[in-house]
């Protein structure tokens, strides 16, 4: 591991002789974002040159020749005013449509994306793979596979930023946010916290290792025997005593959790609520806020007893219960 870091550092040191003008584009969306960026750069250069150039020409051509020179009056030219109102408006519309289309397209992860989990806390990143492997300030991903990161924070607002993938999103306490990417270039890349989060904000950085699928499989195999996230979650589920109420056969004091993930559940108030990550998290840290029609509000809160990572493991377990249910239903 240290070897890779050192090689990376050497490469970087070599690069500092001068400086690059563009970051590596290493994800499926990077080139598209860059294209818009170049368009905007060209636009900026064009108008800056236009304004500077015009001013320069006027400065020389119309310099004051005698101290008491009074130039003739120029009348306001309506057509000209309208031209330079309408043309920028049209340009802005084009950029807006382009940028928004790209943004909406880039922000929807493909259904097939592999889900990984990120917890930010002052001042490190905890990452867990679905297979259960955990990393700190490092993220190993296979090339060519869409990856969706589900992220939350233990404390303040952080921001998960991988420049070469052109992805970034705030990581906010109390809620889940997500980004997705599909790496296209193998290599070692920076991972930054981009939202100021306190003393060691600048140290909240790490490396993303993009590997070939084979290398990634090997890397996962190095930690073979690690329980998967769902297994971690199951262990916690038993340890914390959840299983005594949420029995799989619905015999406990609480509802069975088998098959509920991804469904809509009716609340006491009559509303339907989607059982998603936020819902499960909410029912663990603040069970009182979820009132079900046929169950007494007797569940204690687990806030402070489970870390955000453990909550994510429990979510993975609840998700896996839904998966089993679906497969058994289809049989």
């Amino acid at each position, binding site marked *: 591991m240290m070897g890779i870091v050192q090689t990376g550092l050497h490469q970087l040191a070599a690069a500092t002789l001068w400086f690059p003008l563009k970051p590596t584009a290493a994800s499926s969306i990077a080139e598209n974002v860059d294209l818009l960026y170049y368009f905007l750069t060209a636009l900026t250069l064009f108008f800056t040159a236009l304004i500077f150039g015009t001013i320069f020409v006027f400065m020389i051509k119309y310099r004051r020749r005698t101290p008491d020179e009074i130039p003739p009056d120029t009348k306001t030219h309506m057509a000209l005013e309208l031209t330079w109102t309408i043309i920028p408006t049209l340009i802005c519309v084009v950029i807006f449509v382009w940028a928004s289309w790209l943004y*909406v397209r880039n*922000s*929807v992860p493909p259904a097939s994306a592999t889900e990984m989990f990120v917890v930010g806390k002052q001042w490190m990143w905890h990452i867990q793979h679905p297979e259960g492997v955990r990393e700190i300030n490092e993220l190993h991903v296979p090339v060519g596979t869409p990856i969706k990161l589900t992220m939350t924070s233990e404390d303040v607002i952080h921001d998960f930023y991988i420049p070469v993938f052109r992805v970034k999103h705030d990581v906010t306490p109390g809620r889940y946010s997500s980004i997705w990417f599909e790496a296209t270039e193998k290599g070692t890349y920076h991972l930054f916290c981009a939202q100021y989060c306190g003393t060691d904000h600048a140290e909240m950085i790490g490396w993303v290792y993009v590997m070939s699928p084979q290398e990634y499989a090997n890397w996962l195999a190095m930690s073979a025997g690690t329980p998967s996230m769902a297994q971690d979650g199951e262990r916690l589920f038993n340890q914390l005593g959840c299983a005594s109420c949420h029995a799989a056969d619905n015999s406990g004091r609480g509802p069975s959790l088998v098959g509920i993930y991804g469904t809509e559940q009716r609340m006491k108030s009559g509303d339907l609520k989607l059982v998603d990550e*936020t819902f499960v998290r909410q029912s663990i840290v603040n069970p009182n806020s979820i009132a079900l029609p046929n169950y007494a509000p007797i569940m204690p809160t687990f806030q402070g007893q489970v870390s955000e990572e453990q909550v994510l493991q429990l979510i993975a377990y609840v998700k896996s219960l839904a998966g089993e249910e679906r497969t058994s239903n289809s049989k």
Partner: protein
Amino acid sequence: MSGHVVPVKTYLLIFFALMILTIATTGAAFVDMGIWNTPVALAIATAKMILVVLFFMHAKYTHGLTQVVILCGFFFLALLVAFTLADELTRHWGPQPHAWSAILLLARGVF
């Protein structure tokens, strides 16, 4: 010179109107009108405000500029609230929202 002098009778009338509206809004709080409770309460409050602004504060008798200033204040307050809610209430939407569910959500959320 010193502007319009409003007769005392007008002030008393407005005061009684305000009293009646206060009693009405307090009473309305004990009647279940479904989602209409908050709109009714706010409508009565707005009516009271308009009476105070127009007569007690003499906005009815000042010239247009002052009225523009007042409306400006409320307009920008509306902007602050509307745009903040535009985020807060649509934040949990998926990528394809249904326009109608959005309006329902807004109505249920606010009232």
